[in-house]
């Protein structure tokens, strides 16, 4: 029975310990590791034999806050010339963290793939994957402007899918409209306006 007398002491010791260990940590700013803030389409005209001709140019889409409620992205217009062929490469960056995400996409090429859709591909542009590694990713492509385009403007929708089944029937086509059926989820979905010069 003598043990009972000390019981309250044990109880309160346990209690004091419990209450003391319980303050929330001070918050720390979190590095937004996965946010994409800038997507740039780089164009280099190709001459006969696939050699670069003239100077390169680019069109950029940016959203400095990433996924936060606020500003909508600013998207530049892509201006191309009738009948010409371009090498189109894509660079993806996280400017908040100063991180180049292109390399990550390339490293995980078996899990990522770009699809190119929109009205620009009805009798204006044609596109083919041209990734140096041979894996169909879409970081480098060959884009050809029709010599007699159906219209002098259109929409170029760039979709980056992650975690998809790359061997899904039809998924080898860069214009594959049913890309959702290959599974996975969307990392990027940007529509660039396209203007075709004579």
């Amino acid at each position, binding site marked *: 029975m003598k043990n009972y007398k000390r019981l309250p002491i044990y109880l309160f010791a346990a209690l004091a310990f419990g209450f003391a260990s319980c303050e929330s940590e001070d918050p720390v700013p*979190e590095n937004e590791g996965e946010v994409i803030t800038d997507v740039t389409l780089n164009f280099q005209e190709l001459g006969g034999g696939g050699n670069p001709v003239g100077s390169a140019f680019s069109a950029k889409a940016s959203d400095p806050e990433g*996924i936060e409620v606020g500003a909508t992205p600013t998207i530049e217009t892509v201006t191309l010339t009738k009948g010409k062929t371009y090498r189109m490469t894509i660079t993806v960056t996280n400017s908040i963290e100063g991180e180049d995400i292109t390399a990550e996409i390339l490293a995980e090429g078996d899990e990522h793939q770009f699809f190119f859709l929109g009205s620009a591909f009805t009798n204006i542009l044609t596109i083919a994957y041209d990734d140096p590694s041979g894996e169909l990713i879409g970081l480098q492509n060959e884009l050809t402007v029709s010599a007699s385009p159906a219209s002098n403007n259109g929409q170029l929708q760039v979709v980056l899918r992650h975690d998809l089944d790359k061997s899904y029937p039809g998924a080898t086509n860069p214009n594959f409209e049913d890309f959702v059926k290959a599974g996975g*989820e969307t990392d990027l979905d*940007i529509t660039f306006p396209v203007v075709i010069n004579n």
Partner: protein
Amino acid sequence: MNLKHLSLAIFLTLFLIAHLSLGQTCDLILRGKILHQENDDPIEAAYVWILETRTGAVSDQNGNFVVRDLCPGTYTVTVQFLGHREIRQTVNLTGNSTAQTFRMEEESLDLGGVEVHGHREAVQTTTAVSSLYGEAMLQSRGESLGESLKRVAGVTTFSTGNTISKPVIHGMHSNRIMILNNGIRLEGQQWGAEHAPEIDPFLADEITVIKGAETVRYGPEAMGGVILVNPPALPTSKKHLTEIHLLGASNSYMGNLSASHLGGSDKIKGLGYRVQGSVKRAGNVKSPDYYQANTGMAEYNFSGSLGYSSDKLGVEAYYSFFNTEIGILRDAHTGNLSDLEEIIENGRPFTNAEFTYEIDNPKQVVTHHLAKIKSHYHLNPDWKLNFQYGFQLNNRQEFDRRRGELNAKPSLDLELFTNTLDLFLDHNLKPNWSGAFGLNVIQQANSNIPGTGVTPLIPNYDMFNGGIYAMEKYLKGPLELEGGLRYDFRTVNAARYVGEDLQTAELDYQNFSAFVGGLYQLSPHFAFTSNLGTAWRPPNVNELFSQGLHHGAAAVEIGDPDLVSENSLKWVNGLEFESEKALVEITAYANQIKNYIYLNPTGETYVSLRGTFNVYEYLQADAFFYGFDLSGSYTFSTRFNGYLKGSIIRAKNTEQDNYFPFIPSDRMDWGISYAFGKSSNPESDKITLANVLVARQNREPDYDLAPAPPSYALFNLGYQKKLQLAKNQFNIGLQVNNVFNTEYKEYMNRFRYFTADMGRNILLKLNYQF
């Protein structure tokens, strides 16, 4: 309105029965109730004897007894029950019938072989209460807490796929109901729709649902109801019992093992212990036509307790550990709104999965520690001092599909500490009064563990809640009346970074809550209860501060730091009829909630480089919930039995005159059973056929991603065999759920947008007690 007519009918019936029971000369009735002095548990089979007339009665399972045909006069009444001190009392019967409550005290434990009841507190409330125990509990083994409780009328689930389910009581869930793990309020991250309660149903031998507002007794958030998950009482005398459950299921190839052992010391009188553990492993769930990718789960749980009780003092230490890893349906994790729309249109996952036990991202990894120490001391036969302290640590990690090294890091990593302290004094003043008053303290600290690479969904915060309360009950024979009052104060300090900006908030809330209730045992067959209670709930941290993308829902959710507390007034009425053959319980309720907090689609979208997202905001509006639960059973013969359960609920936003999302649709579950064991024990072999009918939810909110799925009907078949092997009990159960492999979608399942529910599932359940 129907509600009015029904209550009128009930009151008329009450009145008539009350009149009939009034007696004349030599037609007087002595009725009453026999309870344990210790905890107010009713005593069944106590013997009431009137010396003068040599007549008597035996109390029923509710402790009620009736002695009829008495003339006016003075009588000596004795009440006897094994192991309890005999009561001898003089009762004066005049012109009216008399009601009397007897409280029996335990005798010393010296008597060898005397059954001594433990110190598990019975729920003392006049509001509607339903329990899951015994055979129903046995049938529910292997299911999550939420799924098990669907067996109680008026309880449904709010689920995320087939592995995450939260109980819903009368349309309320998450932070509007409270779950008690062996008396301690479970404090996990219950705000999340996809956060299942962190509790192992195997630790309980009884789960009780209180359907009324119980804020006074249990504190804020017990607004919609309370679920008590109670382990068996610890033995106080020499006794050993081991129980093993072994379960297997054909769907998801689930395997589940649980073992528990309880024992009482033969050396130290009053010392008892219990240990229990369970392991569960399941793979991909199969809908009738396809596997749901990445829907496996693994769970490892343990609990143990050690207790000592003497005639004055009781002490119990308890610890439980819960650990789960749950795969989230791969296709439910969508990148943006157009992804979401595509899969909804498709009606099923795009992924053609195979069976696997492997759990990949997206997934949740949750651990929960709960330790408590509890003690009571009998100051004198009438007053008892109670102390309870609980410590909880909840860790929740949620993993998404991410690029590169981030894939191995959780996107949400929360650590929640909770301390709870209860100190109360309760009393049983013979013969009529009992009650309690006390104080209750909750202190909580929530931290985001840095390194997730995602701005946290909710801030770090410290919360303190203090409450004081008092309640009293008057009990006289068939009548019980009770009332209570409580005051709470809560303060929340929150801080977080959004980008480089430090945002802080300090919020205070305070509130009174009160209840009154009554129970009237109209006759040995009829009992009527009524309970009116106010309740409140301060806005939760996610409702105040959410800001960010909710994957899966492709939604940006925005909190509002200016939200005020919800206040509710709930009236619950119950009518219970019990006879030899029939049991019927009707519960009718109405719940008026001021400033009900809900997530409202703004109709706006947010455009980013990733695509488009819906924007949702937390709003407040007045709400009105009402409904009925019905449950009944009828014994046609010793071999044939039938049962029926159903619930109807209506919930409306009375300000906007529209409906809230995720309110259960009308449903009914009925079945028949045939016992075909030997005539001496027909229940040893039993076959049950059940049919579950669920209506379409026609009261849909103005905006939903997809219309409510159609109504459905499921058939379940069960076979139960009980074998007595010497002194040991062996139970074999074979269940076939969704016998016809019907493809259906449940409105209350958030993944109805992506996939059909589980197909046919055949379960084998073995239980051995020795």
